[in-house]
């Protein structure tokens, strides 16, 4: 997974340099890289360092019982927060899955208060506390 993410990040950095992301034409939906939660039905959950799906970005297709060890990378939506730890630092999310709920938990191992995100949904994490420590698909 980590490898996939880094390869993707490199591809995105290249895409960003060419300005492809900013001008991605909706008609060429498949040109939008997988993993950004923006393509026509990707099935991942994304987190951003800033609100409004901006700044450093990360994604997952799997459950994460602990976000420790993962850093935000450059997904082409701003460099703010790139390189900083994902755990307890995310301000916004998107759930691009067509049928699954994404649940973000305040603590590790799916503990503490939690916040549910319906399928095909995006928004700011419901708090001013940067509380994403773990994540689980429902």
């Amino acid at each position, binding site marked *: 997974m980590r490898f996939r993410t880094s390869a993707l990040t490199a591809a995105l950095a290249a895409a960003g340099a060419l300005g492809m992301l900013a001008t991605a034409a909706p008609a060429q939906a498949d040109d939008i890289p997988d993993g950004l939660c923006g393509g*026509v039905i990707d099935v991942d959950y994304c987190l951003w360092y800033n609100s409004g799906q901006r700044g450093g970005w990360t994604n997952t297709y799997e459950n994460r019982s602990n976000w420790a060890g993962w850093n935000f990378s450059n997904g082409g939506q701003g460099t703010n927060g790139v390189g900083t730890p994902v755990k307890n630092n995310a301000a916004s999310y998107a759930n691009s899955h067509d049928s699954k709920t994404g649940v973000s938990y305040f*603590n590790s*191992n*799916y503990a503490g*208060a939690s*916040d549910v995100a319906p399928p095909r949904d995006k928004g700011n994490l419901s708090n001013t506390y940067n509380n994403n420590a773990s994540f689980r698909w429902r």
Partner: protein
Amino acid sequence: MRKTTATALLATALLLAGCSGSGDGDKTAVPEQPDSSIAPKSSSLTADLALPIEGYIFSESELGLMTDAMSSLAQRCMKRSGFDYRPDDTQSPDIGVMDRRYGIANSHTAEAYGYHFPTPKAGESATKSLGEAGRVALAGKPLADGSLDPDGGCIGEAKRRLAGGDAEFGPDKSARELNMESFVRSQKDPRVLTVFRTWSSCMAAKGYRYASPMDAIDDPAFGAEKTSPAEISTARADVECKKKTGLVSTWFDVESEWQRAEIDENAEELARIKRHKTDQLKRAAAELGESR
């Protein structure tokens, strides 16, 4: 398993929907707590507890009901456009709002899994086989900035129908925030801090050093893929000390008190939020009742 859960949920939703008509304002029907082989209700310290805010936010199972109804509507919409869409219906056991809110609080889970909660691997998505045209029909095209359109395609249509026009699908933002704020604030309450200290002494007497139960479940040592014997003995001690010190009920009471005050203070807004929740669950239950 899934069918049983859905049926029980349907009953709960209908019950909830029925209750709203009688204008019972603040009374919250105690939500059906998840009962799985991983976290059986019979060994849970939180099985009988429901926070006041639970009447306003969506539990995993309640949002699951909404999602099932959404998928059912989307499936029919896709069929009309000539696409055979089969949403992924694999599902991991639900975690209730109270289940792990104060850390590990289930003696069976502690004994069998430590601080872990085993989850199945994510299944393959059904959408790749749809091809681009089908995927656009299902979820619409991305917005100009490349981000996903929550209102797009058959899924967007299904959500609007269940939410009722322009209203938000699923949980309300202010209710979600209240739930989070309650959790954060309560951890600074003197009564909660006192019971943390008592719990901490109880743990220390058993040879484990943690300032609070959240420190224990957050311990990086328990982040490995496999549960270690040390993790299991720590988790067992954790649950025992919670029992002995009454930590769960103390913390729960503090959160409940604050939540009730907030709910009273914003009664009108929260009544609207509860109505919107009830209406959505009612529509979802009706949709699932129809399609079964």
